[in-house]
């Protein structure tokens, strides 16, 4: 689905992403783990073409469209429901769009906020809106950057289930940056641990948790609570 080759991105003189080769198969659910500044968000921005690499290539099968939720999503000032309709664009018939938007509102617990302005929501509500906008329609490739960082644990768990169900139903390839090994275990079938822009561990969730191979894998797992 996606192949990264000799990918490099600099911030001034500092190398912030440095990946020799990484292949992601269709339908995989990948959790990108790593400390702040490890390059997770930059990697997602590179794959989504929000920023361009300084060196290397990103090849996406059949140039499938990449849908991406940034770490700081913006709720547009129109109502929550209209935000979702906007994201659905003109690809669907009017009635179909309404049904899809209503289903997304329900799935992410936004029915009560349907008419509230998107730019006047709390952090957790904005994240739920961002997910509802993105996941109202089926997509092949989804990139999420810490999508539950501002949510309470109850909302977080509901969203995790919604993400897994969505990916299974639509055979969506998912790459999600997260700080939480618990969340990674809940959602992903492959874990990639990044440190200083490089991949230091690329394995199954069970293997990373039970027997991390790299020094950073051990440090990360030890310091994170489950």
């Amino acid at each position, binding site marked *: 689905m996606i192949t990264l080759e000799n990918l490099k991105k600099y911030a001034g003189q500092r190398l912030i992403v440095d990946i020799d080769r990484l292949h992601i198969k269709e339908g995989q659910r990948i959790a990108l783990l790593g400390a702040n500044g490890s390059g997770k968000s930059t990697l997602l921005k590179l794959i989504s073409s929000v920023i361009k690499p300084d060196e290397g290539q990103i090849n996406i099968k059949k140039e499938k*469209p990449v849908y991406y*939720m940034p770490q700081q999503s*913006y709720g547009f000032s129109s109502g929550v429901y209209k935000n979702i309709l906007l994201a659905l664009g003109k690809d669907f018939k009017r009635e179909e769009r309404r049904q899809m938007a209503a289903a997304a509102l329900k799935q992410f617990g936004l029915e009560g906020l349907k008419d509230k302005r998107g730019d006047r929501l709390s952090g957790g509500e904005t994240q739920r809106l*961002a997910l509802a906008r993105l996941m109202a329609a089926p997509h092949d490739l989804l990139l999420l950057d810490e999508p539950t960082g501002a949510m309470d644990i109850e909302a977080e768990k509901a969203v995790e289930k919604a993400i897994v169900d969505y990916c299974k139903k639509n055979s969506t390839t998912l790459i999600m940056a997260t700080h939480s090994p618990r969340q990674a275990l809940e959602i992903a079938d492959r874990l990639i641990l990044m440190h200083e822009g490089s991949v230091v561990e690329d394995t199954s969730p069970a293997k990373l948790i039970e027997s991390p191979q790299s020094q950073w894998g051990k440090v990360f797992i030890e310091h994170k609570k489950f």
Partner: protein
Amino acid sequence: MDAFKEAFGLIISFDKELYGIIALTLKMSLSSVLISCLIGIPAGVAIGSRNFKGKGLLMKILHTLMGLPPVVAGLIVFLLLSRSGPLGSLKLLFTVRAMVIAQVLLISPIVTGLTASLVAVKTPTILETAAGLRLSRPTKLKLILSENKAPLISVVLTGFGRAISEVGAISLVGGNIQHRTRAMTTAIVLETGKGNFKFAIALGFILIIIAFVINSIASVFRGEGYDYA
């Protein structure tokens, strides 16, 4: 106190000269602001919504031009439009058009600089979100303008405030000619100098009323009155 009474009398009697000056001032100010916004808002959005090489220097130049003294702007336009100047053949000196040109020179950098600074606050996040949703380019542009509606209205108001209150540039290139280029501010200066306070007070009072009405209309468009629910 008598001067105030007489000023009020001029207003309610629809004094022809007074209202002629007001009409000319509004025509000049609205034209200047419209042209300045047509130049400055797209330029400000283009500068403020992205990072590029030389942006820092461009912003410094803009900030310098934002503080351009009106008499200097007036002098530049005067020299350009004077009979021996490069644009002398257009015969625009001492016309309302010349006053508008001088004001556009003053106001465009203000509109551009303020738009660039204000748009830079939200726009990178708006653009990143819109890119993630794969929204079209026209939709992105529409979102930049609609999501920055309140600050952009403030920019237009600032431009209008500058236009309607300006004296130096328009008196230099307009000449303060009765019935032709006399604006409210230049008339206030002239009438105060002559000791004709009632006319000056009436004009000053109407200037304040105009500012209040325009701000009230703008606050409706800005969507003020926040929903705290």
